[in-house]
């Protein structure tokens, strides 16, 4: 069995599961946020149950439009706060909160070998820890909150092997954008993506979270890494719970095995309006920009801020654009503050915000006008995603974003450092 199949078998009371099989899977954690929980709560109330299956396995995070951006968002945030308190769920209020996919691993709420069902497509982020984590809708989450189970079709697994050593400015973002550029936005539709090879073993945990995060942008159901010493070191001090490290069998059946040479991969930029529209940095050309966003569940972690600050230190954001940096959690924010990164970023002319998903989905804190272009470390560049339908989003890693903020056009770090 593949890594995904092993975890799903263990959570469905089966010795073996095969792709295509329908199974009921026990969930270790059930997640929702301020935009998906309201519908989940309404559906939960229709189920005719009075209690959730286990309050300590259900998390609600107000992060998308929180701190509240308008009255309707405030009403939705209030709805989830009241439900979370009533049922004694795990809940992170503004002040302790952050972007769900940054804080859940940070707080030790997700461990290797676990199954996480989240009403947010980027729930796949936790695959970095060797968990089977997948996004679904609000009704699925309502049922999971009541029963602790979700229905699932066992996905086939595609194995991606990244050989070699990535270049200096190439990170998890570039490996995953490159992959999506090669296989397309439905290249891993319904499949589990298993990431292997020296290049991913070489990535920091933050880089792995970035990669697993964007499995959904290839249509994937999950994006999973093997547990290694980096995973174990990350978990140290975050949890006292026991966990199981699964490994794929040597005779596991993969739908396909795709191999890349990471040394050949340049920093990638995804052009509008689809994440698969990637180009290597050297082929970008002259694209003037109006805004840079550094943050999100994809690239809002300490490594990302450190990289941006390294580029921006002692330099200035181009006066013709806005550079907005959004740490992914209060912990990331505080660590960045202690390390002097926030001071560096502000002195360079960046605006630094409290954690929120905000601009990634065009909510607030950096919405674009018609005709404006943004280089963003986020995960989606669909038309209208960050604001006006005639605005453009270019997805890139934090080093490219920071260099672009200085240059006023899409630029690589080598041009400014």
């Amino acid at each position, binding site marked *: 069995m593949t890594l995904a199949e092993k975890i799903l078998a263990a959570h469905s009371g089966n010795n073996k599961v095969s792709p295509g099989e*329908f199974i009921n899977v026990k969930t270790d954690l059930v997640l929702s946020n301020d*935009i*998906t929980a*309201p*519908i989940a709560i*309404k*559906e939960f109330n*229709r*189920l*005719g*149950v009075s209690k959730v299956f286990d309050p300590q396995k259900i998390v609600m995070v107000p992060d*998308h*439009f929180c701190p509240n*951006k*308008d009255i*309707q*968002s405030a009403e*939705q945030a209030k709805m989830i706060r009241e439900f979370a308190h009533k049922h004694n769920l795990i809940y992170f209020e503004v002040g302790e909160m952050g972007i769900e996919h940054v804080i859940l691993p940070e707080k030790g709420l997700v461990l290797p070998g676990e199954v996480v069902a*989240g*009403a*947010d*497509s980027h*729930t796949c982020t936790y695959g970095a820890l060797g968990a089977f984590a997948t*996004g*679904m*809708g*609000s*009704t*699925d989450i*309502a*049922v999971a909150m*009541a*029963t602790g189970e979700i*229905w699932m*079709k066992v996905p086939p697994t595609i194995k991606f092997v990244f050989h070699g050593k990535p270049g200096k400015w190439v990170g998890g973002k570039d490996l995953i954008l490159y992959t999506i550029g090669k296989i397309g*936005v*439905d290249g891993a*539709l*319904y499949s589990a993506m298993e990431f292997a090879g020296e290049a991913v073993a070489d990535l920091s945990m933050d880089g792995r979270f970035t990669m697993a995060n964007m499995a*959904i942008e290839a*249509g994937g*159901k999950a994006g999973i890494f093997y547990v290694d010493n980096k995973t174990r070191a990350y978990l140290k001090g975050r949890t006292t719970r026991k966990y199981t490290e699964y490994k794929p069998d040597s005779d596991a059946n993969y739908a396909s095995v795709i191999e890349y040479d990471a040394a050949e991969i340049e920093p990638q930029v995804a052009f509008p309006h*689809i994440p698969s529209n990637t180009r290597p940095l050297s082929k970008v050309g002259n694209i003037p920009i109006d805004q840079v966003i550094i943050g999100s569940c994809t690239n809002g972690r300490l490594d990302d801020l450190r990289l941006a600050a390294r580029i921006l230190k002692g330099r200035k954001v181009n006066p013709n654009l806005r550079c907005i940096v959004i740490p992914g959690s209060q912990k990331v924010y505080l660590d960045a503050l202690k390390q002097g990164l926030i001071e560096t970023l502000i002195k360079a002319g960046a605006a630094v915000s409290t954690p929120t998903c905000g601009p990634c*989905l*065009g*909510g607030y804190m950096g919405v674009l006008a018609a005709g404006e272009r943004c280089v963003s470390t986020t995960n*989606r560049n*669909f*038309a*209208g*995603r960050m604001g006006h*339908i005639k605005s453009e989003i270019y997805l890139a890693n934090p080093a490219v974003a920071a260099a672009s903020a200085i240059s006023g056009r899409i630029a690589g770090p080598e041009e400014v450092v």
Partner: protein
Amino acid sequence: MPLKGTVHKYGANVDTDAIIPARYLNLHEPADLARHCMEDIDADFIKRVNAGDIIVADTNFGCGSSREHATVALKASGISCVIAKSFARIFFRNAINIGLPLLECEEAVDSIQAGDMLEVDLVSGKITNLSSNTTFTARPYPDFMMQVIKAGGLVEHTRKRLAGER
């Protein structure tokens, strides 16, 4: 009872931001969401759509965000089913869970034009294009999903299951 309605046709990779833009995710009532359904890619959709109408689209319909609001908005706007070459995974689940039928059929998508009148039989998967007098058969649902569809959605299916366990 077969579904019957006029076709609204779209291309590949229609994402959930296009079906319901994120700026409206501060809303969750079906009627509120329906008012903004498809507005960024088809501003007149909501004026044109009639109860029972059918969306026909190419591959990977509903990709992107997990927002169930997309399926809710389509259903509340009057759409009775969506026919596509393939669907994004989470969108597929959401639609089945809330009782919005989806059918996969490549030949039908290639042949059917915007404005055609269709009749769809969900049990047999038979799609009849009344405008061109052609028929197609969609891929059948797996048993488990048919149970959810027959129950009227996942909440109803789960209610039944829980009642059985008591």
